[in-house]
């Protein structure tokens, strides 16, 4: 039996609710869960003040299921640092959803704000709507540090800017379009964008690969064309090409460890790169 949270009213200010996570709920009674601390704006409130809480909590983290019925668009930090169990949100969720997540699953039926799965280390996040910026991204200020360290994020809608900023491992799949700078400062892992991308893909990347099936306005000058390949592979899925394969970003590392797969049929304006390929 899951624990069901229902917002009592629609939220007027941002709510900081990092306690909504299986690790916090496991082994607690409904009353204890209701008295967990949250911030509504600058004020300390109890979880039970803001949500109706029903269901029966499980004793272990793995068995804990949290279902949120309703919109929590202004509730942030849900699922922070969770190591197992699951959260299902039947609505839209706020920012920092699943930040520093280590395991378990999060499912969102609506949209999410920015910083989804920021610096996550494991687990799965599935979003049926759209996501904001910095999906799986590295937090502000941590220059040279790692972003998403592992795990799997799939977004069935579109995503904002800087998908996978600074990521080192794991997979992000965007079924829709993406904003600018996907895979910026990326060091490893995979990003698949099935739709179009606004541009600047892979800026300052030094490892990992980005696959873009839709249109990309231009390729950054730090990238070299390497090949034209028939297929690209992401999470065992073979994606039909052909793809232009670029390597870069030379501005980040002269080794050009990053790979950029750009769908050839969708990007006829990149045809001039073919002249630069050596013909054998």
């Amino acid at each position, binding site marked *: 039996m899951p624990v069901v949270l229902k917002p009592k009213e629609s939220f007027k200010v941002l709510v900081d609710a990092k306690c909504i996570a299986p690790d916090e709920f496991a082994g607690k009674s409904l009353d204890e869960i209701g008295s967990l601390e949250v911030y509504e704006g*600058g004020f*300390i409130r109890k979880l039970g003040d803001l949500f109706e809480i029903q269901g029966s909590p499980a004793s272990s983290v793995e068995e804990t299921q949290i279902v949120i019925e309703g919109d929590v668009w202004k509730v942030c930090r849900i699922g922070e640092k969770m190591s197992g169990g699951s959260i299902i949100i039947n609505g839209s969720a706020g920012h920092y959803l699943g930040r520093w997540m280590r395991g378990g699953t999060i499912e969102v039926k609506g949209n999410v704000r920015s910083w989804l799965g920021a610096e996550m280390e494991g687990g799965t996040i599935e979003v049926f709507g759209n996501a904001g910026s910095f999906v799986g991204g590295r937090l*502000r*200020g941590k*220059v040279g540090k790692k972003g998403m360290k592992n795990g799997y994020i799939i977004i069935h809608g579109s995503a904002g800017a800087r998908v996978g900023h600074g990521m080192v491992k794991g997979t992000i799949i965007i079924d829709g379009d993406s904003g600018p700078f996907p895979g910026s400062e990326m060091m490893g892992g995979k990003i698949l964008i099935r739709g179009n991308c606004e541009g600047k893909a892979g800026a300052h990347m030094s490892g990992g690969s980005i696959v873009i099936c839709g249109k990309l306005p231009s390729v950054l000058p730090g990238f070299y064309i390497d090949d034209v390949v028939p297929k690209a592979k992401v999470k065992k899925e073979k994606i039909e090409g052909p793809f232009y394969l670029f390597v870069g970003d030379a501005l980040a590392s002269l080794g050009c460890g990053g790979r950029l797969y750009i769908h050839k049929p969708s990007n006829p304006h990149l045809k001039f790169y073919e002249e630069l390929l050596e013909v054998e």
Partner: protein
Amino acid sequence: MEILIKGGYVFDPINGVKGEKLDIGVKDGKIVEASKIDERSAKVIDASGKVVMPGGVDLHSHIAGAKVNVGRLLRPEDHYISFIKAITGVKRSGTGKTTPTVAPIGYKYARMGWTTVIEPASPPLKTRHTHEELNDIPILDKACFPLVDSNWFVLDYLSKGEVEKCAAFIAWLLDAIKGYALKLVDPGVAELWSLGKGYGLDLDDEIPSFGITPREIITGLCKVNRMLKLPHSIHVHCNRLGIPGNYTTTLETMKALEGMGDGIVIHVTHAQFNSYKGDNWPALRSGAPEIADYVNSHDHVSVDIGQIMFGGATTMTADAPFEFALFHMTPIKKWAGSEVEVESASGIVPFKYKKRSVVNAVQWCIGLELALLIKDPWRVIPTTDHPNGGPFTRYPRLISWLMSKKAREEVFEKINKTAKRRSVLPDIDREYSLYEIAIVTRAAPAKLLGLEERKGHLGEGADADIAIYDLDPAEGAKDPEKIVKAFKYAYCTIKDGEIVVMNGKIAKTTYGRTFYVKSKALGEDLMKEVEEEVKQRFKEWYTIQFSNYIIDESEIRYPEPIVVGG
């Protein structure tokens, strides 16, 4: 409110009290004789088995102003997981470890038993910002030192040999922007930095735009300081800071001011960063014994150590060329730098001191050597140059190292072994007593600041700033962990007669004063003449209006002028 603190072991060096059991009375924010307090109506604090000291005084901690704020902006990562909660009516919220926001600065100092803190580097043009932040720091009494070493007015007057006019300008400046003492940072370097130069500027290198050398700036401003009878000596961050081999420059700087007058004429700040021997970083050795020898044999110098603490720090200084060089040496690739028109410059680089690093381990030794080799505790102050060497919140650990050789040996176990060979620290047996700790953290800094009448002691008439630590002076003072715990969370802190910390927790939010200096040492005619000159030049040199430069007393929450020389 009346308070009676009963039966504590009192350490009050200015009044010569060395841990005797005494009662302390507090009335109307001042300390009074215990017999004058009516025990039935007063709030009685049982301090038996505990240590009672005056509130701590920190004379060098970067807590407010433009560069501190840029440090916060530069380091959002410093704020993610360091959140203190607000409690309505009791305390405000905040974040930050090495670059804390205003509220935690006040609370964390008060929690350790500190009640007076000085911001030591504020470019005059940015001092309105400094005061706005000082206003908002809870609990503490504070003051700020304006940066004057690269000020065009100062350079111009001194290069022409017009020391009196320079003094008049400084007197006007201190009053105009509500500053407390003169801060010199790598004297003259900011003037060169405005041309993109200045790294390694030495005492006798000429600054071409004014034809003046750092030596002339330092001696000139020292004379000015004496003429104006300012309560604190000049506060000098010596030239060539953070460059191996710089201990000779530090010695030369101190020598240059021999015979300047009675008493202390120069305070050498964060001397650790200026006591380096060796030709380059890999060969870094300690120059602390030479510096300590000099200080021991000359009584015109006081020092604060600028200890480094292993872990995170944010270096910020008006020594912009040094920060630019440091930026290229560190793996954390972040840097902010700026120039302040006519006056100063600054740079900020996040830093991490590592136990494994030879350089950092030697730096750690140098700071402690200075504190332990300089014999007169009235002239050596333990600081971390917050947040340059580490945050001020690590003072309790620093105190434990000063008080316990065992604690120092434990650190030697964990740090780079080379450091042992390159310093004399392993051979030093000296351990500070609690009385000496009370000197170096309270009485001495209060005295050096010229605030000894009201701060740093528990005699009648002093401000009722008191710290009570849960520490047994006989037993507890031998155990480093107990020392750290006691100083980290004071049992009780009283500020101006109000209990602000109880059981290590904030009990109340109050706001302290801002001290500034008005010098009446010079004649009115001279002052007028110079003010007219400044007004004229202002139009040529600054991009802002003269009238907007002046900071009015009404802009300061609780202004407290200290009038001198009248």
